[in-house]
C-alpha cells in the first residue's frame, strides 16, 4: 500500500522545497541544488553518519543533526550554511586533518580528494595542531590495491561496499579509536571480481590502484563518457585519458545497468584495449604485396571490389563492433547481396554483484552481441566454418582473425578486411581498411538486455583510421545507395529508419541511461 500524497514541505537555506516522505535532508538539499559536504555518505551505500561532516542546523533541534540520516519533516527549517553549520563543518575537517598527512603532492587522490576540497572550502590555512601525527603505515589489501592507513579517514565506505554490495564482508575496521585502520581479518590479501570499487568509493587517497599509482595527476586526465567493452553488461564508464592513452576506467552512474559499480575485469579490458601494433592507413593489394594508400584510392578499390564480386557476400564480424559500423557493413554487403554474417562470443566465468544483482560480469565477454544479432548477424561457434564453402566476397569487420587457418581466405574473392590489427590471415586480404577502437570513435552498443547505449570518442585514432560508418557511408553515397553520414548519430538515425528492431530510436531518445531497443523487447517477450 503506497501512501498517497506522501510529500513533505520544508525550507533549506531559505528555499522552500517539497520532497517525498522518507527522504533525508541531504537528499532533499540535492534537489534544491545544495550540496551538503559529506565523506561517509555514499548514495550507493548505507549511511552510518560517522564522519560528522554533513551536520546541519535544524531550527528547534538542540544540536546539529547529520543530514545523511535525518529524515525530512513537515515544516522543517534547515540551515546548511549558517554560522553553526559552518562551525560544525570546520570542526570535522580540522579533526580529520589532525592525523591526516599533508602529502597531497605525492598522493594519487590530489585533485579529486573530497578532504582536499573541503579543507580549501572551509579555508583553514593554518593548523592549530602542533602534535606529532600518528603513523600507521601502509599495506596491500588486494594484489592490486594499496592501502595508505595514514590517509584513511575511516569513513568505512570500503567496508560497507564489501559488506552490502559485494556481500563478502572481508574488510573491517581493525583496532579502535585513533588507532583504527582498515584491513582483512586474516593476514591474507583478498580477491574479489569487483574489488576495485573500494578505490572508487574512497573519498581520499587511502585506497589506490597500484597500476596507476604515482602515474597520472587527476587534473591531467581527460574524462570521457564511454561504455565498457568487457562483456555484454554494458557498464557505463568514465574513461580517463592522458596524452592519447587510457590510464583508467571508473564506473559512471547508471541505475539501470551498473549503478555506481563495475567489475575489475572491465577496467583491465578498457585500459588494455587497442594495444599492440595498430593499422594506421588503408592497404591495397598489388600482386602479392599490400601497399599503403589514401582513403580515396581505398574507397575506389572497395567500389571496384563490389562491382566485380561474383555472387553474394558473407561476413565475419566482431560482436565488439558498434551498431553503426555493423549497420553500414550490412548496407555495403547488400549491394551485392547479403548472404549472412557470423560472429563469435568469447566466454568467461560469470560473476554477479550480489548487492546489485542487475550487474554481472557476464559470461559473454563481448559488448555488442545483441546488437549484431538484431542487425541480422548470427552467432557461430565456428566462424571459419561459416565461410568454408563460400567463394564470393568476404568481409571481415574488426575480428583480428588471429586463430584463422592458413588457407582461410584462399578461395574467397574479394577479401575485404576492416579492423585494427594485421594478423597473418589479414595479410592475405585484398583490401585492408583501418578502423578505430571503441575508445577512438563514437557509437552505440546494445547490451545483453537490448539496451542501446552511447559511447563517446576519448582518443585520437592512429594514423588515418576511420570508422566504417563514416567511410562506408561515403562510398554508399557515391554508389547512389544511401547518404554520406557525417556523425555517428546520423548513422544511427539511418539504422533506426531501416531496422524495425531499432525503430524510433535516436541519439536524442537514448538519453543518458540508454534505452531498450523495441526489437529486443519483442524478442524478450517471445522468449518469456
Amino acid at each position, binding site marked *: 500500500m503506497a501512501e498517497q500524497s506522501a510529500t513533505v514541505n520544508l525550507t533549506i537555506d531559505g528555499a522552500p522545497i517539497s520532497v517525498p516522505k522518507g527522504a533525508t535532508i541531504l537528499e532533499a538539499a540535492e534537489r534544491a541544488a545544495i550540496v551538503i559536504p559529506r565523506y561517509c555518505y555514499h548514495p550507493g551505500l548505507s549511511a*552510518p*553518519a*560517522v*564522519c*560528522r*561532516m554533513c*551536520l546541519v542546523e535544524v531550527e528547534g533541534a*538542540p*544540536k*546539529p543533526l*547529520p543530514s545523511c*540520516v535525518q529524515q525530512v519533516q513537515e515544516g522543517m527549517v534547515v540551515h546548511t550554511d549558517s554560522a553553526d553549520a559552518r*562551525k*560544525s563543518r570546520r*570542526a*570535522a575537517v*580540522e*579533526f*580529520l586533518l*589532525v*592525523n591526516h598527512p599533508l602529502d597531497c603532492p605525492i598522493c594519487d587522490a590530489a585533485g579529486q580528494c573530497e578532504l582536499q576540497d573541503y579543507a580549501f572550502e572551509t579555508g583553514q590555512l593554518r593548523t*592549530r*595542531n602542533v*602534535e*606529532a601525527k*600518528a603513523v600507521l603505515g601502509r599495506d596491500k589489501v588486494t594484489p592490486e590495491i594499496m592501502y595508505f592507513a595514514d590517509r584513511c*579517514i*575511516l569513513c*568505512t565506505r570500503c567496508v560497507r561496499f564489501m559488506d552490502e554490495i559485494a556481500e563478502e564482508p572481508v574488510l*573491517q*575496521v581493525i*583496532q*579502535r*579509536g*585513533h*588507532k*583504527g585502520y582498515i584491513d582483512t581479518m586474516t593476514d591474507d590479501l583478498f580477491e574479489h571480481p569487483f574489488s576495485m570499487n573500494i578505490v572508487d568509493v574512497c573519498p581520499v587517497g587511502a585506497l589506490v590502484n597500484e597500476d596507476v599509482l604515482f602515474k597520472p595527476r587527476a587534473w591531467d586526465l581527460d574524462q570521457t563518457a564511454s561504455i565498457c567493452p568487457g562483456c555484454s553488461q554494458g557498464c557505463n564508464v568514465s574513461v580517463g585519458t592522458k596524452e592519447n592513452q587510457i590510464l583508467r576506467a571508473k564506473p559512471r552512474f547508471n541505475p539501470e545497468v551498473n549503478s555506481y559499480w563495475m567489475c575489475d575485469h572491465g577496467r583491465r579490458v578498457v585500459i588494455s584495449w587497442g594495444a599492440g601494433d595498430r593499422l594506421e592507413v588503408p592497404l591495397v593489394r598489388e600482386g602479392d604485396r599490400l601497399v599503403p594508400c589514401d582513403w580515396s584510392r581505398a574507397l575506389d578499390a572497395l567500389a571496384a571490389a563490389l562491382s566485380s564480386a561474383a555472387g553474394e557476400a558473407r561476413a565475419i564480424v566482431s560482436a565488439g563492433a558498434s551498431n553503426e559500423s555493423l549497420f553500414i557493413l550490412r548496407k555495403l554487403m547488400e549491394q551485392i547481396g547479403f548472404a549472412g554474417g557470423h560472429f563469435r562470443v568469447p566466454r568467461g566465468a560469470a560473476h554477479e554483484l550480489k548487492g546489485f544483482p542487475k550487474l554481472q560480469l557476464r559470461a559473454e565477454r563481448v559488448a555488442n552481441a545483441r546488437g549484431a544479432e538484431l542487425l541480422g548477424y548470427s552467432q557461430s561457434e565456428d566462424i571459419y566454418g561459416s565461410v568454408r564453402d563460400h567463394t564470393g566476397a568476404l568481409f571481415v569487420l574488426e575480428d583480428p582473425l588471429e586463430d584463422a587457418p592458413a588457407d582461410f581466405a584462399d578461395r574467397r574473392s574479394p577479401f575485404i578486411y576492416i579492423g585494427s590489427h594485421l594478423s597473418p590471415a589479414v595479410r592475405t586480404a585484398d583490401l585492408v581498411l583501418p578502423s578505430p577502437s571503441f575508445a577512438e570513435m563514437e557509437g552505440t552498443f546494445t547490451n545483453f538486455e537490448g539496451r542501446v547505449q552511447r559511447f563517446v570518442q576519448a582518443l585520437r585514432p592512429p594514423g588515418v583510421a576511420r570508422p566504417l560508418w563514416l567511410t562506408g557511408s561515403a562510398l554508399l553515397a557515391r554508389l547512389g545507395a544511401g547518404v554520406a553520414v557525417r556523425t555517428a548519430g546520423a548513422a544511427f538515425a539511418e539504422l533506426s529508419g531501416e531496422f524495425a528492431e531499432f525503430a524510433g530510436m535516436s541519439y536524442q531518445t537514448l538519453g543518458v541511461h540508454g534505452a531498450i531497443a523495441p526489437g529486443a523487447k519483442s524478442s524478450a517477450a517471445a522468449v518469456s
Partner: protein
Amino acid sequence: MAYPHAHPRETRVLSKYFGETDAIGIDGWIERGGYKGVEKALSTPPDDIIQVVKDAGLRGRGGAGFPAGLKWSFMPKNGDRPNYLACNADESEPGTFKDREIMRWTPHQLIEGCIISSYAIRAQHAYIYIRGEFVDVVRILNGAVVEAYERGYLGKNILGSGYDLDLTIHLGAGAYIAGEETGLLNSLEGRRAEPRIKPPFPAQRGAFGMPTTVNNVETLAAVPHIVLNGAAWYRQWGTEKSPGTKLFSCCGHLQRPGNYEVPLDFNLKELVFDLCGGPPDGRELLALIPGGSSVPIMTLDEIDCDVSYEGIEAAGSLLGSGGLIAMDDSTCIVHAVRKMVDFYAHESCGQCTNCREGTSWLAKILKRIERGQGRDEDIPLLLDISANMAGKTICPLSDSAAVPVVSSIQKFEHEYMAHIRENRCTAVR
C-alpha cells in the same frame, strides 16, 4: 568474610547481604526471602508491574537516570516479534564498581530482577551482558543461573505460571563503549561495539533487530524490592524526583573506600567525610567526581548538596553512575585529567570523526602541558576542541571526554597555568 566498610548510616536495601557468603547460593537466598518478588510478580498482570515501577519513580542507575517504568512502557505489548531484555552489566565507567558487588554477593537478586522485568516487558529471553574482566563474578553468576533453572525460576512454565524465560550470560571483550546501550546491543550481536544512531531506539529495534529494553544491574536489582513492597515503601527514601536508595562506589583518596548504599537525599559531603572517612590523615580534599569520570569535577565547596539526580546537577555536576572519585591535595589535576582523557582516547570506538580525533588530540596536548611544554594558547585550544566534540557525535563518549577537560579548566585553571608558565606542579607531595 564481612563486607569491608559497612556503615551504620547506610540504608542497605540492595546491599543488605553484601559480605554474607551464604546469600550467594540459591538456598541461602531463599532463606533470606529471595524469589518472593518473582512469585508475587508472576501472579500480577505485567502492566501492573510496569505501573508500580513507574509509581516508585525508579530511575536508571547506569548513569542517564531515565525512568525505568517509562522505558518499559515503550515496549510493544502484542507485537509479532520477540521482545528482549538486555541487562547492562558491562560496568565500564571509571570509578564505578557497584554492579560487580551486586552480582558477586547477590547474584539471585539480579536474576530475580531480570525475571520480573522480562515478564513485565513480555520478553521470553533475557541477556546479561557482563564485562569479560569480571572473571570471578561470571563464575558466580553462571552458577546462579544454573541453580535458578534447576529450581524452575528460569526455563519453561516458571512456577506453574505459564511464563517462559531463558537467560543467557554474554561476556564482553573489554571495551568501555560496550556499556553504551546500543554499543552493547551491537556487541551482543557479535559486531563491533559501535553505538547506533537513535532513532530507532532499542524499544523499536534493539538486539537482533527486535524490541529490547536495556537496564543497568542496579536498576534491575531494585525491581524485586519494589514489586514486593510497593511504590510507597520505595518512596520513603530519596526525593520526589529521585526516590529510593543508591549504591555509591567510593574510591580514590579516602580513609574507607568501598560501596555505600544511601537514600538519594543523603548529603554528598557527609557521604565523603562521614561514611568514607574523608581523605587520608594530613591531607585536604581537593576535588571530587561524584558520578564516574564522565561527569564534571567538583571542588570542595560545591559538595554540600544531596546526592539526588537534581541535587548534584544543581551543584554543578551529575549523579551519573554513582562512581565517586575523591582526589586529595597530592593530586595533580592536569595529570588526573590527562589520564582520564587517555582513557577516552583509548576507548573511543573511532567511528565518529570528532571523538576519534578529538580525544587523542586532547590527550596529546595535555601530555605536552604536563611535560612542561604547554603554551598559553593551549587553554583556549583545549576548550575549543572540547566544544567541537560535545554534542556532535552519535553517542556521548565524545562529550564525556570533554567534560573533565572543561570542568577542570573552569575550576583548576591555576594548576594548568602553573604547568604552562612555571613548569611547576601544584600537587602537594
